[in-house]
């Protein structure tokens, strides 16, 4: 029996149309708009002004705290303006707009393809450098990576877990990265192991990617301490809590972080970025983005610069199909529906999913028939039907008692509900309110 996490889970249609598509380097756009808030935590602060000349990889906005991230210019050219532009959140937010001129990289970046295996940086240097390079969780969570690498005093980490699960349907960016940049990911893993001072790393990959499992297993034999764990396909296996449970059978207690059970999780894409930052001195300013959908004529995996307009990626994948009803930033389970395709991609853009009209609409909501299917699928062992009802009625103390804050917003409950109840919509509302109440209490 293949391993998986212990509670709940669903299996949505995988639809990995872009699987096996080679990563294609997208032409440098004529203009980029780089939002200053691309990560969880405090927005960064621009350090360039209108008219400044910048090079690829040059720092353009500075991290403003421990949980924040530096931002580097994805292109070379002139800062056109700093203005509020519509981003993937659906709101206008501050961004640095740069008009591209040529493609001149900062001299310190090693642009060669050569694999650098030897790790000379010390653990402290690694953590510092990861922070400087502006690396955030590339699986979509965008949590600054150096924060996770700084094990708090009193806690110990004994295993690094890499997320190569890509449990969201449709998305194939991580899959393709493992196929094409396997060695770099291996070295990146060793860098992370060194930083965390652990002997052991496990890369979790779902068994719908047998080629990646095989390829990575072959490579891992050349690197000490790295094992590949094949996992049964089950959503949301890419959730940190679920992945740790699946790989090593440890469950993080309610309200705690992975370090509580001695684990740190990073995504494989993030690991590649770490390799590039440490071994090649290249900060994070580009990433792999899957562009896919049922009617998309050329589902693809692109290497694109941060700040590239979504439109440009969609055009490169054959253009926006006639029947488009929804454009999603990310996957179908946790991604965000976009109001416009005229927004820039960011560090967290794992994919662009284009859905036809007929599946974009939600079904009619019916009364709850108490079938308990939402309870069965919830990976956190919650009672979604109840959480949604108490949230709808505004009974916040009850919502808190029923552990609404444990919800990881995976959407399995709404996905499953035969009455098509928008359970997660209500739960989000409840989480927002309960979170506010809890914070005001500790003040």
């Amino acid at each position, binding site marked *: 029996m293949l391993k998986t996490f212990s509670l709940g889970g669903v299996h949505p249609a995988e639809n990995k149309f872009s699987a096996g598509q080679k990563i294609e380097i997208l032409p440098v756009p004529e203009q980029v708009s780089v939002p200053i808030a691309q990560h969880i935590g405090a927005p960064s602060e621009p350090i360039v002004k209108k008219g400044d000349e910048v090079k690829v990889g040059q720092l353009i906005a500075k991290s403003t705290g421990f949980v924040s991230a530096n931002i580097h210019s994805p292109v070379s050219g002139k800062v056109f303006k700093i203005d509020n532009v519509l981003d993937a959140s659906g709101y206008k937010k501050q961004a640095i707009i740069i008009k591209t001129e040529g493609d001149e990289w900062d001299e310190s970046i090693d642009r060669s393809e050569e694999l650098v295996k030897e790790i000379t940086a010390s653990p402290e240097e690694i953590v510092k450098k990861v922070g400087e390079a502006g690396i955030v969780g590339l699986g979509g969570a965008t949590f600054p990576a150096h924060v996770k690498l700084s094990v708090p005093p009193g806690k110990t980490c004994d295993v690094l877990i890499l997320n190569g699960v890509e449990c969201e349907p449709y998305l194939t960016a991580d899959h393709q990265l493992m196929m094409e940049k396997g060695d770099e990911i291996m070295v990146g893993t060793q860098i992370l192991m060194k930083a965390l001072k652990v002997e052991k790393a496990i890369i979790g990959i779902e068994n719908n990617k047998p080629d990646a499992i095989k390829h990575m297993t072959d490579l891992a034999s050349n690197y000490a301490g790295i094992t590949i764990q094949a996992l049964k396909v089950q959503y949301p296996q890419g959730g940190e*809590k679920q992945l740790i449970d699946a790989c090593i059978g440890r469950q993080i207690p309610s309200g705690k972080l992975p370090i509580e059970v001695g684990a740190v999780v990073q995504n494989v894409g993030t690991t590649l970025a770490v390799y590039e930052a440490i071994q090649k001195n290249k900060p994070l300013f580009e990433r792999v983005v899957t562009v896919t959908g049922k009617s998309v004529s050329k589902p693809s995996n692109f290497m694109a610069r941060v700040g590239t307009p979504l439109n440009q990626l969609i055009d490169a994948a054959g253009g926006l199909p006639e029947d488009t*009803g929804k454009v999603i930033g990310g996957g179908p389970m946790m991604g965000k*529906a976009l109001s416009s395709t005229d927004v820039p991609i960011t560090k967290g853009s794992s994919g662009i999913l284009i859905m036809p009209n007929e599946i974009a609409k939600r079904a009619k909501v019916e009364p709850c*028939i*108490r079938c308990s299917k939402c309870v069965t699928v919830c990976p956190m*062992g919650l*009672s979604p039907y109840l959480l949604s009802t108490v949230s709808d009625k505004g009974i916040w103390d009850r919502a808190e008692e029923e552990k609404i804050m444990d919800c990881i917003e995976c959407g399995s409950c709404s996905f499953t509900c035969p009455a098509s109840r928008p359970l997660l919509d209500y739960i989000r509302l409840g989480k927002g309110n309960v979170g506010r109440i809890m914070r005001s209490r500790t003040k």
Partner: protein
Amino acid sequence: MNRLTVSPSPHVHSGDSVKKNMYGVIIALLPALAASLYYFGLGAVIVTLTAVVSCVVFEWAIQKYLLKNESTILDGSAALTGLLLAFNMPSNLPIWIIIIGSLVAIGIGKMSFGGLGNNPFNPALVGRVFLLISFPVQMTLWPKPIESQMHYLDAETGATPLSVMKEGLANGETVSTLMSKIPSYTELFMGNMGGSAGEIAAIALLVGLIFMLIRKIITWHIPVAVIGSIAIFTGILNLVSPEQYAGPLFHLLTGGVMLGAIFMATDYVSSPMANKGMLIYGVGIGIITVVIRVFGAYPEGVSFAILIMNGFVPLIDKYVKPKRFGEVVKPAKA
């Protein structure tokens, strides 16, 4: 460009629906319906048709004229209630009594609480128990299987294995002599005995269970808890005093245990939400059933047991929660 739909995640749905589940249960009941038609023929046809049609018509009429809300008869739940009600009645029940039972099931059992999803009790059982109390004679006349294929009201009636056992034991007869007066276990398993129209054929009901488990319409918890607890409880009694108490197989294959455990107790609306809660509820039904059968005044107790446990569901749901992630803390290895 066309306008983009913006809605919160998830953006895909399993495609499951209330309708699919209701019709799924109806499909799971088809083997039992076939058995019913085979053993009780004409009577089964009339009882089933009357109950299904009147349940659907009552629901439609109540929604149209009293509640004035949107009709839900197409979701299949009213037809399902009708089918289950029919399965819980003798096949020679007069049409007017069936209609009263349907009215009670739908009107009181379901719609008075606000329709599907809100009824605390299984509507078909509300209808059945109402009839049992109001028409005790008609509700306990049991047409003989096969012989009554071509008969309805004029079907020749006889005792059920349960009533043979109950009366015999009361008259001081032993279990072994009584067992010789009822059909063999094989015949009981195939459904060749007197009883309610749809409850007799254990084999057909079990096929329905397997179908529902495969289609993930229900989980195993409730049926296994009911059947298991009845088997264990009657098994212990039988071990203590084999001539005074019939064995587990007798209890499982007679009366409404299979129909109750598989189709009545598993009614979504009136059963608990957490797996542990389902087990407690199922065991409660099993124990109450045996207590009524063995120590009570009625030969059969499944319907009462389910209704009683329906009443405990809010309490069970309040105190029995699903197993939460991270509840059992596995400490990090040093």
